[in-house]
């Protein structure tokens, strides 16, 4: 029963990993195929003064998201990638929140009525829904950072000596083998 519950948790955490990976691949590709549109959206945040830094962000960020998404799907460097997602999601969410506050103030509308293309790859979204989505994405990334989603990974950790996760039933196998070898002598 406990093994079944543990299996269920493991499978769910892999589903979370795959969901995050697929989402970042999709959102990244949407932006990568129209980088000039993403460039305009990043500019609208008025956070970057230099046109060359603006170009670098708009040119590289979508493909970086695709890269991170593929790593999660394949199960490579999962915790490192999860940390990267968190480092992207936190400032993005703050920037979206601040921009929505400005828009609510300038348009004199309720905060949750603010709707704009935040540059996430999903087009125009209602801000409160977007913030809620980002909250769950952050939560999922934190779960992966905490060590979940280890099953079915090509290389869970880049620097671990045991690159593959240990089988769940290994401790039980060791206990059953020892008495049989002792009895022969």
């Amino acid at each position: 029963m406990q093994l079944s519950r543990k299996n269920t948790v493991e499978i769910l955490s892999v589903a979370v990993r795959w969901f995050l990976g697929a989402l970042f691949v999709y959102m990244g590709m949407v932006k990568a195929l129209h980088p000039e549109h993403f460039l305009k959206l990043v500019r609208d945040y008025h956070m970057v003064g230099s046109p060359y830094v603006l170009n670098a962000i708009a040119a590289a960020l979508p493909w970086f998201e695709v890269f991170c998404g593929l790593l999660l799907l394949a199960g490579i460097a999962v915790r490192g990638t999860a940390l990267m997602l968190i480092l992207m999601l936190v400032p993005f969410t703050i920037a979206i929140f601040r921009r929505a506050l400005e828009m609510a103030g300038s348009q004199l509308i309720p905060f949750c009525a603010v709707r704009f293309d935040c540059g996430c790859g999903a087009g125009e979204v209602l801000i409160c829904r977007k913030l809620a989505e980002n909250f769950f994405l952050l939560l999922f990334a934190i779960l992966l950072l905490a060590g979940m989603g280890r099953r079915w990974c090509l290389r869970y950790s880049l620097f671990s000596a045991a690159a593959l996760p240990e089988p769940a039933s290994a401790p039980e196998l060791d206990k059953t083998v020892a008495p049989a070898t002792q009895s022969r002598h």
Partner: protein
Amino acid sequence: MKRLIPEALLVALAGVAIAFIANAVSPRGLSLSRDYFFQNQAAATAVPAGTNSAHDPNPAVAHHNELAARLQSKGMSLADSNQVVTLFHDPRTEQGLVVFVDAREDAAYQAGHIPGAYQFYHYYPEKFAPVVMPVCQSAQQIVVYCNGGNCTDSEMAATMLQGWGIPGPKLMVYEGGITEWTNNRMPVELGERKSGQIRP
């Protein structure tokens, strides 16, 4: 933690390198050295604070005044709906002496543009310049438009044309854009230029 930071750094470095390579290889990749919004030029020709351009409580009026002031500082002008309709019906349009330039991307242009308008999406100028530049050089008046509202692509496209040698006085930016044009029930051409598919 000891393994996490190096792993994250490696993911970051590899990801950034691959991202820039992918952008360089992609046919829609951005040029890292291009000033797409002419920000450096805008800083050099900034409209002085305290002019009438920005001080209006109505955001739409303030935007209009700011745009008019920016265009004026570059030697260009702002066109309103009446002026654009008059130019559209001007006999010089048929002779190619009055030219309309659509500054939007492919999908938007194909979905409907001012009849006879040339497409010039300034983010990929190499694609459109061979057709648009000769036409603009021989034209007496050029009206550049995009979606209208907060769309700045028409201003950017006009600025790029000016940078390539088209005199500023020839260039007008239609602030209302295709949105105002269609709201005024003006004809719209679908698909390619001179496709013959006109939506009344």
